[in-house]
């Protein structure tokens, strides 16, 4: 019977401490910087959310602890809930569209044998452009109602011009179109990578066993690309919840409040308006919602994929 080599715990333990000490010394600056940059703002924002801190209040005012007053105000603030609704509508509009476009194009790319690298680079390009630039070029110029090319084409075809930026509904559609244009590429690249990780012999074996292409797709491809798909979806959902740049450039949150997102509202309240207390409570609300959503999403997807 083979015997396992004997380990002397005390010697190994000493060795590990000495070994890890150096690792910790080298890691310490990075850890400290991250802690300072991350923890300080997070803790400070939490503190601000429980005060009446205001940057631009003139006169002899002391910042006071107000308990949950800012959160109570948040709950009854119609304007904030409108921005929350807008954000959810935006997310529900863009993420499924990006998934469908991403999957369709990735499947097509995965099946072509020539020019795949060219297309992959091509589809990477929208991701390299700043959202501000995209909003200005794709948004403000293409969707300009008066002399923009889209309405011009529509009018030349005999249709009425679309009030892209002055109708609450169409303004949201325009924003979604821009986001879908820019971020479908992300989905394409992620899903293409996932598809290329599927071993081709599984499909061959299925074909030998009599499975058709649809069955092969649903039973082999989909389960195997599911982990990456779910990760990509989570990233896009969180990004969609935090959307701000394209809205600022294209609609400024308008018409009315039809396209104002939660993040834009936080920026306006806290940064521009100087109401750091209420802005912080809004920011924490968004953070908590995203943490709960992200946690639930991860648990449910792991369960669905049978990992728990």
């Amino acid at each position, binding site marked *: 019977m083979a015997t396992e080599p004997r380990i002397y715990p005390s010697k190994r333990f000493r060795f590990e401490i000495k070994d890890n000490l*150096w690792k910790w*010394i*080298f890691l310490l600056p990075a850890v400290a910087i991250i802690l300072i940059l991350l923890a300080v703002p997070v803790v400070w924002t939490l503190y601000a959310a429980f005060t*009446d801190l*205001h*940057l*631009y*209040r*003139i*006169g002899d*005012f002391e910042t006071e602890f107000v308990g949950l007053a800012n959160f109570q105000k948040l709950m009854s603030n119609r*304007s904030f809930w409108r921005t929350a609704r807008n954000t959810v509508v935006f997310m529900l509009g863009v993420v499924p569209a990006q998934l469908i476009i991403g999957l369709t194009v990735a499947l097509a790319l995965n099946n072509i044998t020539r020019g795949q690298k060219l297309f992959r680079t091509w589809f990477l390009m929208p991701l390299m452009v700043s959202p501000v630039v995209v909003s200005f070029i794709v948004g403000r110029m293409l969707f*300009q*109602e*008066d002399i923009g090319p889209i*309405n011009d084409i529509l009018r030349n075809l005999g249709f009425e*011009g679309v*009030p*892209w*930026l*002055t*109708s*609450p509904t169409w303004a949201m559609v325009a924003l979604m179109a821009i986001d879908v244009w820019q971020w479908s590429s992300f989905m394409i690249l992620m899903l293409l990578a996932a598809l290329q990780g599927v071993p081709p012999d599984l499909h061959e074996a299925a074909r030998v066993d009599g499975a058709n292409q649809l069955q092969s797709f649903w039973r082999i491809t989909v389960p195997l690309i599911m982990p990456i798909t779910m990760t990509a979806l989570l990233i896009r959902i969180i990004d969609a919840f935090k959307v701000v740049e394209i809205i*600022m450039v294209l*609609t*400024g*949150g*308008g*018409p*009315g*409040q*039809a396209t104002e997102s939660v993040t834009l509202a936080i920026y*306006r309240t806290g*940064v*521009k*308006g*100087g*109401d750091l207390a209420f802005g912080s409570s809004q920011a924490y609300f968004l953070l908590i919602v995203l943490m709960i959503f992200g946690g639930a999403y991860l648990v449910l997807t792991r369960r669905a994929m049978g990992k728990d």
Partner: protein
Amino acid sequence: MANKVSRRQFLRLAGGAAGAMALAACAAPAAPASSGDEAMSQEKIVIRYAGLDGMGARVEAFMLPWVEENGYELERGAFGQQELTDKIMQSVATDTYLADIFQFPSNARADVINAGALQEIPTEVLEAIDFDDVLPGIVNTLSWEGKIYALPYDGDIHYYSFRKDLFANEDINSRFKDSFGYDLSPDTGAVTWDQWRNICEFFTGWDWNENGEEDDFGAACMTKRGDTLWWGFNSRATAYAKHPDDDAYFIDLDTGEARLNNPGFVRALTEWVEEMQNWAPPGGTNFTYGDSLNAMNGGRVAQTYNWDAVTSATSPETSVIQGLQGYNILPGSHEVFNSKSGEWDYFDIPSHAPFHAFGGWVIAVSAQVDDLAYDAVWGFVTHLTKPESGLAFVTDLTGASPYRFSQMDAVEEFATGPLQLGEEVAMDYLNAARETLDHPNAVTDQAFGGWVQYRDALELGVSKALANELPPQDALDEVAVAFNEISERMGGLQHQAELYARTLGK
């Protein structure tokens, strides 16, 4: 035997070396190798200026000869409009250094000056720049509680501008008279907002610019939330809501209660929504300030009101209407709402209440200027704002507007200088500027603390009405509630009323 160094040893050595270097860096600097004179010559006084990118570049170009002549150095921070205001407000609120000299919007004066962020302008500087020559309407934007804390750079106000050539056209005028019973005036344009509305309606939907398409409209205004909607709406509302017998406009000076939902404001918004939805180019309810200028300068609309209507119309690259525009103060009204009595008062001669929209960019010296740079900084701002320099700026394509009595008389410089306005346009422009800045019923822009929040609240409500999300009365009711809430957060209604009185020079 070769000396081999393991990866772990290398990391240890590298870490030790980095630590030694860091310690060395923290130690006192070594004595300069060069002679004392050379060291002195290297220690030039640096003047740090923060301002708008475009305007700042012109300031830099203008001031560089003076800076070099005096042996100084200039470091210029360039920002976008919103970014600059945010930077200044944040630096003031957190008491951190931004620059020695900065350009800031005069309607942030309560926030900036009251926080002790600026130095009072010394008497000798005021004398050197002939401060008595500055129009009283502008002096107010530089002052706080009777003391001067900033220097003038730009007399930003809204001008009414109209197509003088169209209004002088006999055929067009006769058709207009058939419809509305009076003549178009090429000298004054619309004198009342009722006339403005008639002109809007008349010039919409037919090919008066003769480009072969019926894509011509009555007016274009700045209507986009987050852009310049605040000024677009207030310029439209002042004639109805600012009574000549009452100094206040935004909030009541006695109670601090918002006035934004009174019948004067509601009438203005109701009419404005109709105008922008029916008589402005497509998208007119969401136009930026640039969009409205482009519509005017592109020959698509017959009238507008704006800041840069004059200078932008002079460039052949951006305008097809050079020399065709007339200028006047903003239209007035025969009926004005009296907030004190709660009634509309009738005036035989239209009551005007021109809006000092934005009030202009001003130049100020930070309270945190280093002692070494003190003389250089004051020399810089004196040279920048003295009468000759001011005239050079306002008669060039800088976007700066006139603000001195002497500039109002400089017709020749405006007519034949870089702007090339021509004598007739120059006269119109300067008359409109003087009348607006000197008007007894002019409305000073909101400048009491928290103006950014008030602005956002108004823009949100007006934008909802423009988008038909709410009727004008409901939208402005929301604005009034928001105004009062902001006032409460900023220290109370009474506190804000007192600050408002101070911004009005009371």
